[in-house]
């Protein structure tokens, strides 16, 4: 079964989360995790011939932010885009089909993992660091020119702020007071290069901070905190108080690209990876939901089984889908 994503706004101005919303946040995170665990399980089968950058461990950022958006708000994402795509409501079958290079893929097999687009869900991605940041700003410019109350989100990694285009885009958004939310997913590494060799030791969000720009740092593995911060920021953007920058502290558990674990490779320690596995956003939120009697283990097990079934079905469906016709190779270049 392929559930349609639900967009449930916060219940009151203090951004307290109701039970339905909490369940929804959990379900979406679990869905993304299980989708990517499916990729891990089947990647060796060689049906997904596309470099994949897994979001496992970072789901709370994508889900917290995207759940606070309206459907026609737009999301722009870099290479590690699976979580953003699914959290914003990107089609699941099209997701697996794209990874398998099929005609039914989100981009008809043209781009694979790092470029996932779903126009209906208003989510776009491209894998050059920082390349989608100005596109989000341009979308926000159009929103403002047309007096629409829409918001654009630019997801970016910690390395993207090292790119000049980030500074250029941020500056333009500030000067024009645009409704754009910059969400930095600080996972401490750019490929295998640690943050400490790339940036000064001061907190990233402070280095971005300006008198004209509201910035904050939050625990990116706490989906409730992310959702609350996002709701507030998005509301400010809609009121013309944008742009806003949020740094979310998080961590990718798997290797930079591919389905494996890599703590034997020397650039990060097993201890470090394990400490972050303990902070897994899904595990944390699950025990909170159980403790708060919002969901019980039985319900969660049933949900997990149901979602796993969705993933299996989507993968099988992808493999049964046709390849793109080679006659369409030159379609839509111009």
């Amino acid at each position, binding site marked *: 079964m392929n559930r349609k994503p639900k967009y449930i706004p916060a219940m009151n101005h203090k951004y307290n989360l109701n039970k339905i919303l909490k369940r929804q946040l959990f379900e979406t995170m679990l869905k993304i995790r299980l989708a990517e665990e499916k990729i891990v399980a089947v990647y060796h089968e060689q049906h997904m011939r596309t470099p994949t950058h897994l979001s496992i461990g970072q789901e709370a950022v994508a889900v917290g932010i995207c759940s606070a958006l309206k459907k026609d708000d737009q999301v722009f994402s870099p290479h590690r885009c699976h979580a953003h795509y699914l959290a914003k409501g990107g089609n699941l079958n099209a997701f697996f089909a794209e990874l398998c290079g099929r005609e039914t893929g989100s981009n008809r097999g*043209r781009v694979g993992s790092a470029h996932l687009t779903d126009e209906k869900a208003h989510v776009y991605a491209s894998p050059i660091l920082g*390349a989608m940041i100005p596109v989000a700003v341009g979308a*926000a410019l*159009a929103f403002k020119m047309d007096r629409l109350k829409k918001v*654009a989100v630019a997801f970016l990694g910690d390395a993207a702020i090292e790119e000049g*285009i980030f500074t*250029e885009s941020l500056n333009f958004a500030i000067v024009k007071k645009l409704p754009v939310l910059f969400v930095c997913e600080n996972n401490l590494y750019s490929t295998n290069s640690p943050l400490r060799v790339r940036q000064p030791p001061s907190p990233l969000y402070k280095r971005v901070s300006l008198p004209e720009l509201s910035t904050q740092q939050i625990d990116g593995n706490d989906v409730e905190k992310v959702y609350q911060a996002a709701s507030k920021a998005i509301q400010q953007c809609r009121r013309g108080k944008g742009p806003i920058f949020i740094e979310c502290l998080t961590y990718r558990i798997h290797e930079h690209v591919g389905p494996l674990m890599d703590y034997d490779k020397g650039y990060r320690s097993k201890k470090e990876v394990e400490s972050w596995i303990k902070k897994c956003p899904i595990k944390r939120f699950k025990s909170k939901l159980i403790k708060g009697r919002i969901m019980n283990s039985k319900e969660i097990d049933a949900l997990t089984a149901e979602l796993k079934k969705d993933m299996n079905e989507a993968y099988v469906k992808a493999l049964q889908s046709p390849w793109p016709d080679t006659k369409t190779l030159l379609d839509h270049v111009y």
Partner: protein
Amino acid sequence: MAQWPIICLLLGWAHESDKFDEQNDEYCYNINNMTRKISYAQAISEALVQAMDLDPRVFIFGLGVDDFKGIFGTTLEAAKKFGSTRVFDTPASEGALTGIAIGAALNNKRPVLVHARNDFMFLALDQMLNNASKWKYVSYGHSSVPFVVRAIIGKGWGQGPVHSQSIQSVLAHFPGLYVAMPSNPYDVKGILLKSLQVDTPAVILEHRALYNCEGEVPAEAYTVEFGQAKIVHPGKDITVLATSLMVLEALKAAQILKSEGIEMEIVDPVSIQPLDEETIITSVKKTGRLICADTSWARCGFSAEVAAMVAEKAHAHLKAAVRRIAPPPCPCPVSKPLEDAFYPTYQNILEVVYELLDRKIFSSQNRFQEVDSFVGPY
């Protein structure tokens, strides 16, 4: 506005071959009885104002577009008429501005981004080549980002190594962009209006040395098609394919050759991507000889592309090897004698024509009185 050392010859040529977009009556224009003459810069200005009148989605942005100079006068009228919401100054961020144009185009805007020198577009190539050129393809046509980049090629009075380049081959190499190099006021107006109607990001490379050239231009809005070359001077003995400013140099050469009984055919591709191969090949089949005169270097350049294309598709019709006329393989220097030595002129064309036709080389004295009244600085 500064005067440039260009003698504009044979103004108002070659409009007969235009075909108009018959589906859009507003843009159709009967070109009979055309008498009004305006400059290349005025034609750009007029196109922008008319495009903005016709389409409320069009806006113009870039460094200095609303200042007192208004990009050599081309955006003054638009800024005056439409105000700061639709013509606005920006930070000096070529890369981000290009991405911003993409994001706005994705949301039903028609941005016109202006670079006062096309050399600055190197700062925007990630956005141009990784995002803009591929957007439509990677979404399988579900979304597209049509916007226009106006970028000016500089020349003369010490513009120097990085204000005088001509970057067409870089842009045309990558599938997904339209690249035009209009050589006269009529074409620049029509192609600019057309570029704001197509569904593909388009770069209009305007030559600064053409800005004061006058030509006949209809007052109404009309379009010039991408991928439709023009025979700007008919001939049977030799074909010169010339881009942008080199069309004027070729016209000077053609005038001299005519007096010597040689009929040179000049083909102006107008856009180099898409490229009207058919018109070029038809001309080569007729004359059997081809010279390609481009504003940029020969190596891996547009002239190399044309030579390869003709070698592949019309080899049997060639009576001689294809020849290229291009600046020498060095950056453009500032010092006057070096700068003069750098730029190819009609004389270079003449020399190659004489060689290909096995004629005696006539006097290489300057046959055109050029008035160098441009006093800089930009």
